[in-house]
């Protein structure tokens, strides 16, 4: 049992002056060594071992350990055991022989007094100390003990303990150990802060380099000071090439003014945003990016630098453009067809007749338009197959393809608006044939045939022939002045540039529609013929 529980203040300690000066110089050198080492030690354990070595050297202790309470749990983890400590171990615990630091020790016994009572403790007769709990297996015999608490912000969070001074610990060793204590705390905290900051920097860098955005930093006049690897990979400009104003080389020439304007606002605004095109090295073309910059400020709010990101919005913009085009085209088509329906309605009513007949005529024309619309919107190309168009119309009124009806021609597809007009014309001819012509009379025959004619001037024409025969002579050709006649004689030439011929012969209607085919439609025809 030691009487060192209430040591006199160190300043009043009777020490020989020369020895004191020498001792102070040694302690100072030790403190310097500890603080210096804090920066270069690779692990906390290395740092701890160094602290213990300095303490052993200065005090003459035979071994020592350095421990820390784990989260106020009443358990102690070892930060380090000195080299001499490991060497003095004589036990057979395999973890000890592998230098595995013992952790989670209950804070009790003699060392526990240091933590619990929060004071430096000298025990020169440990065998009879009331707090003793015995030693772990293999621990060298303990002749004497000096334990020092380590404090941070007034709290004891750790300790180090020295064992086995050849002649027992005195106030001298206690004073040395207490002088080392603040340096050891500072070294440990500095080491931890550095490790944390390095980890945080590494995390941040991993984040910055892992996100899909191109990241960079710049000064307020738009001079870049750093560029992320994504920027380099995307634009093909190296970091060196991009620094300063070098990054502008990746900006689309038409967007460089906008980029200048972007930085011109840097003085006034907190955040900068612009959309512009950046060169995309992989595809060799420019892609749209949304670029944002946020100022990094010092403690006084002054802007130190700008942190920027550029996000690829090319697909988004293209989809938006495409959507706008589609919506505009759809609106156009819907409104146009309504306008046409309105015109057809007006004409159908103006033709006069009983209301049932007007209603039938109008419904028939509306159905014909609807059929074409449905087919046109079902295909990706929006094109309509001519044969289907004709067949649908005839089969729709119950006509059967037999020896009295033939429908013949090569594969031809028409754009939707052309198909709309041709469909209406076929509808008018069919209605007429059903009421007065070949489809009404048992003797009537109808041949519908078409072919494509190439002219010497390189232009092509689709020629559709409607040929009724065997119809008994009619006193008055009913279609002559109606909607169908106007459609075939006037509307097809007007809107499609077609040449048309419509004859009400004895024996039935004869109609020829010659439609100029645009070059791309003939291409279509050739492809379908090859297929």
């Amino acid at each position, binding site marked *: 049992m030691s009487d060192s529980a209430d040591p006199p203040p160190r300043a009043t300690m009777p020490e020989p002056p020369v020895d004191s000066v020498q001792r102070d110089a040694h302690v100072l050198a030790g403190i310097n060594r500890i603080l210096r080492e804090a920066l270069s030690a690779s692990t906390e354990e290395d740092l701890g071992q160094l602290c213990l070595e300095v303490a052993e050297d200065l005090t003459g202790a035979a071994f020592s350990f350095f421990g820390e309470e784990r989260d106020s749990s009443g358990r102690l983890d070892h930060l380090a055991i000195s080299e001499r400590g490991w060497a003095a171990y004589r036990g057979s615990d395999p973890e000890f022989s592998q230098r595995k630091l013992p952790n989670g020790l209950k804070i009790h016994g003699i060392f526990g007094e240091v933590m619990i009572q929060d004071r430096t403790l000298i025990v020169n007769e440990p065998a009879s100390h009331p707090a003793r709990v015995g030693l772990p297996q293999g621990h060298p015999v303990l002749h004497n003990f000096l334990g020092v608490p380590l404090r941070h912000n007034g709290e004891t969070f750790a300790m180090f303990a020295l064992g086995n001074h050849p002649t027992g610990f005195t106030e001298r060793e206690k004073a040395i150990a207490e002088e080392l204590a603040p340096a050891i705390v500072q070294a440990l905290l500095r080491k931890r802060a550095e490790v944390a900051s390095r980890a945080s920097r590494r995390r941040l860098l991993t984040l910055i380099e892992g996100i899909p955005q191109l990241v960079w930093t710049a000064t307020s006049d738009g001079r870049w000071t750093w560029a992320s690897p994504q920027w380099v990979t995307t634009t093909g400009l190296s970091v060196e090439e991009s620094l300063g104003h070098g990054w502008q080389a990746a900006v689309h020439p038409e967007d460089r003014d906008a980029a200048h304007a972007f930085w011109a606002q840097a003085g006034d605004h907190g955040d900068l945003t612009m959309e512009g095109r950046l060169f995309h090295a992989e595809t060799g073309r420019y892609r749209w990016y949304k670029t944002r910059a946020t100022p990094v400020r010092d403690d006084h709010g002054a802007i130190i630098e700008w942190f920027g990101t550029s996000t690829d919005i090319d697909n988004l913009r293209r989809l938006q453009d495409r959507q706008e085009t589609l919506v505009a085209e759809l609106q*156009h088509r819907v*409104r146009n067809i309504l306008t046409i329906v309105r015109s057809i309605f007006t004409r159908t009513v103006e033709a006069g007749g009983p209301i049932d007949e007007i209603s039938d005529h109008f419904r028939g024309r509306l159905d014909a338009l609807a059929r074409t619309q449905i087919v046109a919107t079902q295909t990706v190309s929006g094109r309509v197959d001519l044969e289907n168009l004709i067949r649908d119309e005839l089969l729709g009124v119950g006509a059967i393809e037999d020896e009295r009806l033939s429908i013949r021609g090569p594969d031809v597809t028409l754009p939707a608006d052309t198909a709309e007009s041709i469909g209406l014309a076929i509808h008018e001819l069919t209605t007429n044939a059903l009421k007065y012509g070949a489809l009404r009379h048992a003797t009537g025959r109808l041949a519908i045939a078409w072919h494509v004619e190439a002219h010497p001037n390189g232009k092509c024409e689709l020629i559709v022939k409607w040929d009724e025969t065997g119809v008994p002579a009619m006193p008055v050709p009913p279609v002559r002045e109606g909607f169908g006649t106007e459609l075939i004689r006037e509307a097809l030439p007007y809107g499609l540039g077609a040449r048309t011929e419509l004859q009400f012969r004895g024996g039935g209607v004869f109609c020829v529609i010659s439609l100029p085919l645009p070059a791309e439609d003939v291409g279509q025809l050739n492809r379908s013929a090859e297929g």
Partner: protein
Amino acid sequence: MSHDSPLAAKRILVVEDEYFIARDLERALRAADAIVIGPVATLEQGLDLAETQELDAAVLDVNLAGTRAFPIADRLSARSVPWTFLTGYDDWALPAPYRSASIVAKPFHADRVIRAIGALMPDEGRA
């Protein structure tokens, strides 16, 4: 012939690719005592009339079988002939220079077209 109509004896160009719409326009303009130039269905025909005919105003369908009627509008503007668009597009779907132009939306009522063209015409001391 009514001389109350603001379009009386005015020469109005009509460019519209849909036959029935063109005929409706023609009929409405004639009813307002205007002289109809056209109607024609294509850009080429429209440009030809815009350059060769004496005109007081024009009605232009924006979409002529897939081609845009803008060159006709430009040609007319160069000759200081006022025009109005007849279109199923909203103004946002038009190129920027034409967004503030006079526009009659399809489907239209004949009266609206007559009023839109009337609004283009100078008063010529008819106060």
